[in-house]
């Protein structure tokens, strides 16, 4: 086992290995105390979101995941980010840092933007020192002027997403997971954030997984595409190979 992985890593630097990943929603279910007595010993309904998905990504590659709603795309991203544990199978990140690009995690709306940079950043797993080193860069990128010193609840929704985007974009990790948040804010910031995103993504050491319904985005950014359907992999290959087949499938 050890030997084979070593061999592989010599050939190409694997960043993420997902092996036979099964995730189902069950076990813990919301109930009341009374109902939990009644259902003691009942069989719980199991919904399998992922049924044995396996794939690998090399370091520096960009993987796009496509599929219909409910295909298990977001579930997979969350599993890779470590928010869920797999019911079966394994996910190996080969000791790399990872983050799920999500907007405004842990924001406290009554506090100032500056304070929220720290709250959110620390939740994403960065230390106080790392954040304070990048604080200026974040504030500059967010570009919301004096509002950075005002409570977040006074922000317009555009400003909110600008700040939130800046935090996640500037505090970077080895592996980035992106769930449909490629552009936020007004037209100008949209372009800026899209370009920043592209810059982050195209860093040769950064591995990226993108979930998107926009096939144009996927075509433009991704080296490889994984097509999921009802929790199973239908196809994996280059964008030119997979996307036409997916379009064909969807138009039927």
């Amino acid at each position, binding site marked *: 086992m050890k030997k084979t992985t070593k061999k592989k890593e010599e050939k190409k630097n694997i960043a993420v290995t997902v092996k036979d990943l099964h995730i189902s929603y069950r076990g813990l279910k919301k109930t*009341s105390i009374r109902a939990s007595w009644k259902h003691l010993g009942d069989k719980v309904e199991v919904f399998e979101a992922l049924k044995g998905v396996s794939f690998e990504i090399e370091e520096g590659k960009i993987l796009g995941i496509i599929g219909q709603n409910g295909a298990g795309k977001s579930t997979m991203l969350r599993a890779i980010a470590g928010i869920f*544990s797999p019911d079966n199978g394994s996910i190996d990140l080969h000791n790399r840092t990872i983050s799920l690009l*999500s907007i*405004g*995690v*842990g924001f*406290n709306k*009554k506090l100032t933007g500056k304070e929220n940079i720290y*709250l959110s950043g620390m*939740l994403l797993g960065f230390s106080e020192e790392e954040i304070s080193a990048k604080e200026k860069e974040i504030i500059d990128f967010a570009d919301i002027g004096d509002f950075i010193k005002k409570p977040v609840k006074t922000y317009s929704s555009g400003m909110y997403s600008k700040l939130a985007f800046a935090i996640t974009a500037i505090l970077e990790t080895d592996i980035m997971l992106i769930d449909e948040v490629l552009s936020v804010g007004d037209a100008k910031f949209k372009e800026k954030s899209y370009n920043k995103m592209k810059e982050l993504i195209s860093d040769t050491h950064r591995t990226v997984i993108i979930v998107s319904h926009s096939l144009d985005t996927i075509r433009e950014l991704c080296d490889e595409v994984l097509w999921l359907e009802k929790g199973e992999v239908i196809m994996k290959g280059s964008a030119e190979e997979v996307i036409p087949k997916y379009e064909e499938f969807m138009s039927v």
Partner: protein
Amino acid sequence: MKKFFSNIKKYYKYAVRSAKAELKSEVADSYLNWLWWIIEPLCFMLIYTFVFGVIFPNNTPYFASFVFIGLTAWDFFNRMVTGSVKLITNNRDLVTKVYIPKYILLLSKSFTYLFKMGISLMITFGLMIFQHVPLSIHILWFIPIIIILYIISFGIGMLLMHFGVTLNDLGNLTNIVLKMVFYLSGIFYNINEKLGTKNPKLCFILLRANPIAFCMNELRKTMLFAKGPSIEGLLFWLVIGLILCAIGAHVIHKNENSYAKVI
């Protein structure tokens, strides 16, 4: 257990920061802001002292301080229990978007409650001086007693936090239990005085079987009446508290990845 401590170490700073953030945001837009942290316990103390010191008179000396010590301990426990039941559901955003050991949420909350308890304790000391309570070295026992109270509350909190995820109506049940504990703990009456001679057995059970009543009684004994605490009682509840914490941490480690799927 090793994982528990390494997680605490790793996320300790976040817990402190988020506790500070919460305290700040609590007072951010109220008119009297942080004064409420003083006014609230003070007013409750006045109410209880009036009702149970004047309307139903009793012979307990330093009654206002007596009530205040009870309230200080009770408020902390009450907040920990009520706060933990809905803790995960209330932090839906966090739980579904990033990984964080879930007891860090409780840890952070507990820091805000500890802070409030600290204020409450300072008022207590002020009141004790005002009432000319004779000071003795035994007062220092309040530190270990509060640590034990904290450990017990944290253990119970972790368990409630876990069950609160799946049981929607756990809050109703804890409310009833809390009410019961509130009246049975002798916050505004002296269990020893009311039952000590009439029904010593019941008195003993009430004071020993209920950790809150026990902690309160020990706090009063050491702080007001210049007596030493019951060491074996303290050790007993310390052990129970540690066991609760160990079970709680274990249950959360085992289940925390599923929480995001449920809420």
